[in-house]
């Protein structure tokens, strides 16, 4: 079963310095029909104006991934971590028993465009942790590049998350195709990040999402001009 979540149907908040599209309920946008999909709880498509950002705020019991499409994101937290994140870099924070952090556009001139993704953790109250790694953009060209998963991996690097879920990224050229098997009983979410992708015959444009259940495989194909996608394999 494939259920399309169109980009234009997402929630939206516009604070002037922040334009955010919410695939699932978040902040002031609340829709009981869109509270998440399996462990995937938040998928925000954020554009932050130059020099602006999210002041210090707290999190608890959430696996938080940041995936930058354009620009730079500066992060600082109560664990003492202070980093700048750009495209082809991944940040994963396990909020666990509690974290306070801030996030700002690290540029004073250019906007930042990134996905912020929250997954409900498999267990509560774990020790908070922070991970960040870079990868070669060629590693997601025409193939699914593992970004985060429940196994620790350093070669090639991916983020460990405290949940039975995997997140992949891929960039597909026009007509380029990937087949992805879905294990029995598992589900998937495919998010269009840029351009156009066909998923089992459904076209995903930038910002569209597709919930996948009771399917045995996915055929991901770059449509007109190709595109970039995120794939979540979920229990």
């Amino acid at each position: 079963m494939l259920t399309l979540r169109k980009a234009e149907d997402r929630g939206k908040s516009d604070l002037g310095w922040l334009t955010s599209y919410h695939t699932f309920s978040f902040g002031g946008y609340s829709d009981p029909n869109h509270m998440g999909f399996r462990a995937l709880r938040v998928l925000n498509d954020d554009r932050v104006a130059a020099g602006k950002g999210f002041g210090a705020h707290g999190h608890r019991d959430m696996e938080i991934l940041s995936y930058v499409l354009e620009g730079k994101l500066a992060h600082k937290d109560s664990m003492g971590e202070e980093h700048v994140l750009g495209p082809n870099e991944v940040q994963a924070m396990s909020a666990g028993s509690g974290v306070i952090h801030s996030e700002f556009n690290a540029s004073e001139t250019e906007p930042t465009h990134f996905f912020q993704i929250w997954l409900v953790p498999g267990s509560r109250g774990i020790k908070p942790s922070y991970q960040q790694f870079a990868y070669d953009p060629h590693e997601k060209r025409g193939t699914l590049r593992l970004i985060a998963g429940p196994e620790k991996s350093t070669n090639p690097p991916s983020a460990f998350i405290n949940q039975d879920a995997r997140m992949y990224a891929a960039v597909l050229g026009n007509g380029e195709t990937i087949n992805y098997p879905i294990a029995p009983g598992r589900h998937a979410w495919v998010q269009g990040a840029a351009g156009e992708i066909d998923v089992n015959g459904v076209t995903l444009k930038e910002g569209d999402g597709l919930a996948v259940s009771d399917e045995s495989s996915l055929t991901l194909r770059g449509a007109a001009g190709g595109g970039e996608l995120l794939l979540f394999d979920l229990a």
Partner: protein
Amino acid sequence: MGDINALVVFYSRYGATEKLALAAGLGAIQADANIRLRRVADRADAATIAADVHWKKNLDRMNRDYVAPRPADPVWADVIILATPAESSSEVESYVASLSSLGSMNGKLAAPLAPGNRESALKPIYSAAACCGLVVTPCGQSSDDPIATATSFGQHVTEMARALKRTS
């Protein structure tokens, strides 16, 4: 989402009280509170601040890192953690004195916090908070580790707010 809303309001010039406030906020999160962190503005004039390089540098950073207090914050809060430097409590005291104009504070907790539990810093805030109708918590225990103490304090006052909410 936690069941208790904790507002952490602090005044800091060089970052020491900011660290206490963050630790208390973290303690509140650990006790399952939703938190908001707010820095109250300086009362000193711009020229005085500009003349102190470290103060100015920290102020620029904190103005970026923290949202200024908003009228809706104390209305939202079940507990207001008030962190003040030992040497200057007037900024937080003024903030507390303004609360009664924002709505009823009855039944909410005020949890003042100062480095070393300095009595001269805490007493004006206790007084201002009580006069607003806030229930004032006693100071936390002193120890050699002020950050750990502030974290425990944040946990403890969140639990107190939870107990108070349950009975009200």
